[in-house]
C-alpha cells in the first residue's frame, strides 16, 4: 500500500476515535452552560502546598462538592511571588471562566518586580480569609513585652535583627517595616533577614540566631504551646484565641496589620459574570465544608465582596506602595 494512503487511513481512524470519545462524553475539558455546573479555572500564584494553594484548593473543593460550580481546573503559576500569575490574569482579559487567588504578598510582589499587572487593574471578587502576624522571641530572650522591644529597637535600630519568612515585599517583610515606621524608626535602618519560609525561621529563633521573628503564627503553634517561643503581640484588631498576647493597639502601638487572601477575576468581564462569581463565593462561604477548612487551617474568616473589598484593595495597594517606595524597592 502507498505509505501516504495508509497514513491517511490511520489519521482518519484517529480522528474518528477522538470524535467518538468526545461524543460519548469523555471530553473532560468540555464546559456546561448550567450555572451550577460550569467548568471554571483557578490560578494559584505559588506552588502546590503553599498558603495560597491551600486556600484556593479548599475554596474550589467547597464549590465543587456543594454543586455550586462544575469541576475546577486548578493551575499553579509560580514565579516572582505571584507577579507571573497576575500577568497571566491580565492576559485573560474578558475571560468568563477564570479567577485567581491572591493576597497581600502578591500586592507587594507586583511592586518589587515593577510589573504592570497591578491588582487595581483586575476585577475584585471577594476577600476570603486573613491571618494575623505575630511578634516572636525565643524563650530566653530578654525582651519580655512589646515595650521592651520598642525600647531596644529604638536604642539601636539596625542592631536588632528581625527575621521573617518572606522575601522583600511579602507580608513578613512589610509588617516590621510598617511597625518600625509607626514607632518612629526609619524603615531603611531595619536589619531584616529573610528566611525561606516558616521552617528556617523557626530554626533561627530556636537557636537564638536572631532577636525577633515576625510571621503568621500557624506554623509556630507547637513551639508556642511548648514554651520555646514567646509571642509579644499580635497584629490584628482582636486577640487571637489560644495565644496569650495583646494586640499591638492594646500594647500602645497604633497599627493594625493582617495578611489577607482573596479572589480576583480578569479585567473586562461583564457585570453578570462578576455577579455570578460573587454569588457563588458568597454561597460557598456559608457551606460547612468551608467552615471546616477554616478551622483545620487556623484561618480567620474575613469575607467581604463588592464595594467593601474594592475599597479595601485600593487602600492596601496604596499602603504597600508607600512602604516599599520609602525603602526604594518600588
Amino acid at each position, binding site marked *: 500500500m502507498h505509505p501516504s494512503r495508509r497514513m491517511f487511513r490511520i489519521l482518519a481512524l484517529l480522528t474518528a476515535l477522538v470524535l467518538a470519545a468526545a461524543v460519548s462524553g469523555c471530553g473532560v475539558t468540555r464546559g456546561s452552560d448550567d450555572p451550577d455546573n460550569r467548568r471554571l479555572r483557578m490560578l494559584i500564584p505559588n*506552588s*502546590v*502546598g503553599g498558603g495560597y*494553594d*491551600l486556600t484556593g*484548593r*479548599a475554596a474550589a*473543593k467547597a464549590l465543587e462538592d456543594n454543586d455550586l460550580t462544575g469541576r475546577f481546573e486548578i*493551575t*499553579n*503559576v*509560580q*514565579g*516572582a*511571588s505571584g*507577579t*507571573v500569575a497576575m*500577568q497571566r490574569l491580565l492576559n485573560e482579559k474578558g475571560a468568563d471562566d477564570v479567577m485567581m487567588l491572591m493576597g497581600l504578598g502578591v500586592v507587594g510582589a507586583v511592586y*518589587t*518586580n515593577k*510589573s504592570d499587572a497591578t491588582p487595581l487593574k483586575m476585577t475584585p471578587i471577594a476577600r476570603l480569609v486573613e491571618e494575623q502576624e505575630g511578634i516572636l522571641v525565643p524563650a530566653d530572650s530578654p525582651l519580655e513585652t512589646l515595650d521592651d522591644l520598642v525600647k531596644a529597637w529604638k536604642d539601636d535600630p*539596625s*542592631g536588632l*535583627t528581625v527575621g521573617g519568612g518572606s*522575601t*522583600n515585599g511579602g507580608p513578613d517583610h512589610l509588617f516590621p517595616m510598617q511597625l518600625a515606621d509607626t514607632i518612629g524608626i526609619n524603615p531603611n535602618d531595619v*536589619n531584616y*533577614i529573610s528566611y525561606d*519560609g*516558616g*521552617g*528556617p525561621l*523557626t*530554626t*533561627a529563633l*530556636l*537557636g537564638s*540566631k*536572631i532577636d525577633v521573628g515576625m510571621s503568621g503564627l*500557624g*506554623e509556630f*503553634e*507547637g*513551639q508556642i*504551646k*511548648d514554651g*520555646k517561643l514567646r509571642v509579644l503581640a499580635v497584629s490584628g484588631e482582636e486577640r487571637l484565641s489560644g495565644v496569650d498576647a495583646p494586640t499591638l493597639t492594646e500594647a500602645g502601638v497604633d497599627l493594625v496589620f493582617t495578611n489577607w487572601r482573596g479572589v480576583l477575576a480578569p479585567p473586562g468581564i461583564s457585570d453578570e459574570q462578576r455577579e455570578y462569581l460573587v454569588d457563588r463565593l458568597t454561597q460557598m462561604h456559608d457551606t460547612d465544608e468551608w467552615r471546616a477548612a477554616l478551622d*483545620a*487551617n487556623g484561618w480567620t474568616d474575613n469575607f467581604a465582596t463588592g464595594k467593601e473589598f474594592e475599597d479595601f484593595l485600593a487602600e492596601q495597594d496604596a499602603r504597600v506602595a508607600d512602604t516599599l517606595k520609602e525603602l526604594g*524597592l518600588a
Partner: protein
Amino acid sequence: MDLLLDGFATALTPENLLFATIGVLLGTAVGVLPGIGPAMTLALLLPVTYSVGADSAIIMFAGIYYGGMYGGSTTSILLNTPGESSSVITAIEGNKMAKAGRASQALATAAIGSFVAGTIATVLLWVVTPFVADVVVTLGSPSYLALMLLALFAVTAVLGSSKLRGFIALFLGLAVGLVGTSTGQARLTFGNPLLADGIDIVVVAVALFAIGEALWVAAHLRHKPLEIIPVGQPWMNKEDWRRSWKPWLRGTAFGFPFGALPAGGAELPTFLSYATEKKLSRHPEEFGHGAIEGVAGPEAANNASAAGTLVPLLALGLPTTATAAIMLVALQGYGFQTGPTLMDDHPDLVWALLASLFVANTLLLIINLPMAPLWAKLLRIPRPYLYAGILFFASLGAYSVNFQAFDLALLLAIGALGFFMRRFGIPVLPLIIGVILGPKIEEQLTTALKISQGDVSTLWSEPVAVVVYAVMALLLVAMAVTGARKPSPSESPLLDAPGDSNDNKELVER
C-alpha cells in the same frame, strides 16, 4: 521497643499495607517525571487523604516519599533525565553504565544501596531523634557556610582532567546560579519575571544531560547499523558487590546528617559522596565512563538524607524540604499538634510512621530489584525512538510545571549549551555544582554577616564551622603532600605542560 512493635502492628495491617503499596507505586511513578515530585503529589493528594485515617495517610505518604527517590534514580540511569534534584548526580555515572550495557547493575546497586541506606537511616532515626533536635538548632549560618565551602572545596575532585575546563564549567554554573531576584534586585533576568525565581536545578540538569546529549548524538550518530545496547548480566556480580558496599555505607554517613540539618539540602550529600568515591576509588579512571561507586554512593546518600529530614520534622516540627513541609501540613490537618511535643503526645503515630518507612523501603526493594533487568530492556528499543522518547519526556516534564512555552525555550537554550560543552570537552558536573552551591553560599554568607552587622569573626564563631575549616586545612595539607609525590600526568597544557604546547604551536606555524 514495645512502641516500635506497636508501630509495626499498625503499619502491617492489610489495609495499611495496601496504602503503603499504593504509596510506593505512586511515588515511583511521579519520581520518574521531571517537574513533578513527591512534594507536589502529596499536596495534590492531601484533600483526598482526609477521608482515610491519619495512620493510613501517613503510611501512604511515607511510601510516596521513598518511592519518589527510587523513581528519580531510575530515569536518571535509564534516560539521563533526573526526575529529582537529589538524583542529578546519579545520572552522571548511572547513565554511562546503562549505555555500556550495565543498566541492571546500576539499577540494582541503586535499589540495594537505597534500601541499605534507608534502613540504617531509619534505625538511626529511631535512636537519635529525641537527642539531636536541640543540637540541630544551634547551627547557624556560619556553620552552613563552612559546610558549603567544604563542598566547594570538594569540587576540585570532580573538575576532570583539564582543570581549565573544569573551572570554566564551574563559573558558568555560578553565573546561572546568579539569575533571579533572591537578593531583592533582579540579576541577569533580562527584565523577564519568568526568570525572577532563578533557574531550577532540575531544568538545568535535564537540559544539559538529556537535550544536550540528544543534540550531540544527532550530530554524530553512527551511520553504520547500530548495535543494540547489550542488556548484559541481569544481576550484580561479586565484583559489583565488593565495589558497592563501602560507598553505600559512606553515602549513608553523608546523607543522614545532611538531611537532619535544616538548611543542608538534599543535593549536597549526593555530591559530597560522589567526590569522596572518586577520590577513594581504586578505579578513578572509570569515573565519567560508568563507575559503579558513583551510583552506589550518591544513591545511598539521597535516601539516607530523606530519612534524616524527618529528624527535625518529628522532633521539632521543622520541615526542611518541600515534601516535609507538606507532611507537616497533613499532620496539622489531622489535628495533631506538631512541634517538640509530638513524640510525647502521639508516640503511636510517630512509631507507626517510622515502622512504615521501613515497610516502604522493603516494598520498594521487592518491587524494584526484579524490575531492574526488565527496565534495562527498555534500552533495546531502536535509537531514534529512544532519543525521541527522551526529548518527549524532558519536554513534558519542563512544561508540566508551569505550562509555559518559556520553560521549553529555556530547556532548549541550556540544551544547546550542553551540546557545545560536549563539543569542547567541558565537564558537566562542575556546572551543576556551581548552580547548586553559588546561591547557597551567597545566602548563608549574607545572612551571617547581616546578623553580625559586618563583623567577619562571626564566620568562625560556631564550633561546627571551626571543625569544618580544620578538616579543610588538613585535606589541603594532605593533598599538597600527595600531590608533590605523584604529579598528575593529565593536566591542561596551559597549566602544566608548556613544552607540549610549544611543539603544537610550531605545527601551526608550519
